[in-house]
């Protein structure tokens, strides 16, 4: 399929007219004859140039045969090649927060509106075609643009509903986190499922009557019809103005969807953390010193909460990937204007992380395949992993050692209020949860370079580096 330095992107198979290849950190896309012609046409259009200039579409250029470093067997398969700018960390909609999905939906609609107004369209509407670069959504699937044939409806409308609109509805109207649904089905929340989730009362909420209820009814009624609806629509005079009316209404609808990210256990951490001011400064300084001495390129902050320590790390490294189980906390981090651009905040449960799945279990990959940390921050997390998620401390440390060469980890003793709360209704079988156990497990993999006691010894910070 390819030689050792070229890998085929396992998620790019759906479009028969192209394929994505990774080569030495660069991203190329092979195109068929027709897709290449379409790209050349598109490139001439001022609307497309503007989308590129404003960063809404990923920087893309055609590569000549001489400048194409891909092996001959790959080159032979396609008429031409594009090179795309590299996205620092690939992320998926089930890792995004509400506002990230909403921003991605806004971008998708903007692209359709611009394209259709200029005689083009987008052949699909998948959030997997959108990535976050510097905390802004960027469209990466350039060959999705194609000329809009006369009389054609918007091909991506249904997919837009299933992969953007219905998940957003679920968060706003049902107060139910959308991420588990997006991770359960690679095609999102299908129309019939949405119709069963939104009851009679929900039909009167904005957008539900037409996009959910009516769509499901029409679907059931006409799904088996032998009519050639496409050609009927065309001969009845369906035109792009109808698409634009629908898209502009959808833009207004999506804009008005608001989710109040409040009331979680951790979202208010910064206001109610367990530290005195002095101890807090000690902890911040410890992290600042660790970052400046170890000089990591990529830092993972696992259990980042609203990201106050991610921000310290971000000042001293290229990229921070901040993850937390709490949707509210991550949402607040994403919306916080003080969050630096080189932080990507994602919703992620360390005990139930993003899997490799989809076609051949390779279409979407786990987080470790998409980003490799040089240093991991694991602050005030270990009690949740060991006590709440029941993961043996030894296994957790082994996992961390497989993930990173450098680690900043915080131990929270049993005297700490948070630990007492976690244990209050549980039989305490956590004999492995002790300072001695953590230190001996760390020492199997790491040298403990620096150690700092905080909160009068209730908590300890360790900077560990692999032997």
């Amino acid at each position, binding site marked *: 399929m390819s030689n050792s330095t070229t890998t085929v992107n396992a998620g790019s198979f759906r479009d028969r007219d192209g394929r994505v290849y990774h080569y030495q950190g660069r991203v190329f896309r092979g195109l068929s004859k027709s897709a290449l012609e379409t790209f050349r046409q598109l490139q001439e259009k001022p609307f497309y140039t503007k989308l590129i200039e404003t960063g809404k579409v990923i920087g893309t250029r055609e590569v000549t045969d001489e400048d194409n470093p891909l092996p001959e067997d790959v080159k032979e398969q396609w008429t031409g090649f594009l090179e795309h700018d590299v996205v620092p960390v690939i992320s998926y909609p089930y890792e995004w927060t509400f506002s990230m999905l909403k921003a991605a939906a806004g971008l998708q609609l903007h692209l359709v509106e611009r394209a259709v107004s200029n005689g083009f369209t987008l052949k699909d509407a998948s959030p997997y075609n959108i990535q976050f670069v510097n905390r802004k959504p960027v469209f990466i699937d350039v060959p999705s643009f194609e000329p809009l044939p006369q009389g054609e409806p918007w091909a991506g*409308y249904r997919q837009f509903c299933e992969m953007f609109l219905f998940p957003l509805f679920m968060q706003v109207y049902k107060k139910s986190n959308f991420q588990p649904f997006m991770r359960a089905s690679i095609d999102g929340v299908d129309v019939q499922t949405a119709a069963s989730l939104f009851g009679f009362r929900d039909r009167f909420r904005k957008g539900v009557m037409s996009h959910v209820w009516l*769509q499901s009814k029409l*679907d059931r009624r006409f799904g*088996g*019809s032998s*009519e050639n609806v*496409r050609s009927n629509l065309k001969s009845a005079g369906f035109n792009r103005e109808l698409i634009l*009316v629908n898209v502009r209404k959808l833009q207004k609808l999506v804009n008005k969807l608001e989710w109040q990210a409040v009331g979680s256990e951790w979202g208010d951490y910064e206001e109610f953390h367990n530290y005195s001011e002095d101890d807090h400064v000690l902890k911040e300084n410890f992290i600042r010193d660790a970052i400046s001495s170890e000089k990591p390129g990529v830092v993972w902050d696992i259990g980042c909460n609203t990201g106050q320590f991610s921000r310290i790390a971000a000042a001293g490294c290229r990229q921070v990937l901040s993850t937390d189980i709490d949707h509210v906390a991550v949402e607040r981090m994403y919306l916080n204007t003080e969050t630096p651009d080189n932080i990507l905040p994602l919703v992620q449960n360390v005990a139930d992380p993003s899997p490799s799945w989809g076609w051949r279990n390779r279409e979407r990959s786990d987080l470790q395949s998409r980003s490799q940390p040089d240093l991991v921050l694991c602050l005030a997390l270990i009690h949740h992993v060991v006590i709440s998620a029941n993961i043996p401390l030894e296994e957790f440390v082994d996992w961390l050692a497989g993930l990173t060469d450098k680690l900043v980890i915080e131990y929270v003793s049993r005297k700490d209020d948070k630990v007492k709360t976690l244990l209050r209704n549980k039989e305490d079988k956590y004999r492995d949860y002790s300072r001695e156990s953590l230190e001996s497990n760390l020492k199997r993999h790491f040298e403990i370079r620096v150690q700092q006691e905080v909160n009068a010894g209730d908590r300890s910070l360790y900077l560990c580096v692999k032997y």
Partner: protein
Amino acid sequence: MRIFIAILLLLIFSDAAAYLDPGTGSMLLQVILGGVAAVGVAIKLYWHKLRVAFGMGKKEDPEDESV
């Protein structure tokens, strides 16, 4: 307005068989969502159907598929 177009559309086509083609309903919905601009399209769809029913129109035009 939407209700009017929806009723018109519901009158046009026969009921569904077991196999569901996921696109058809969503395509028709786009006529309803097209608002005022779509009334003409909906009426034409209805008219076309009537003509077919009375044997006056051609049932399908395969040429139209290849756009």
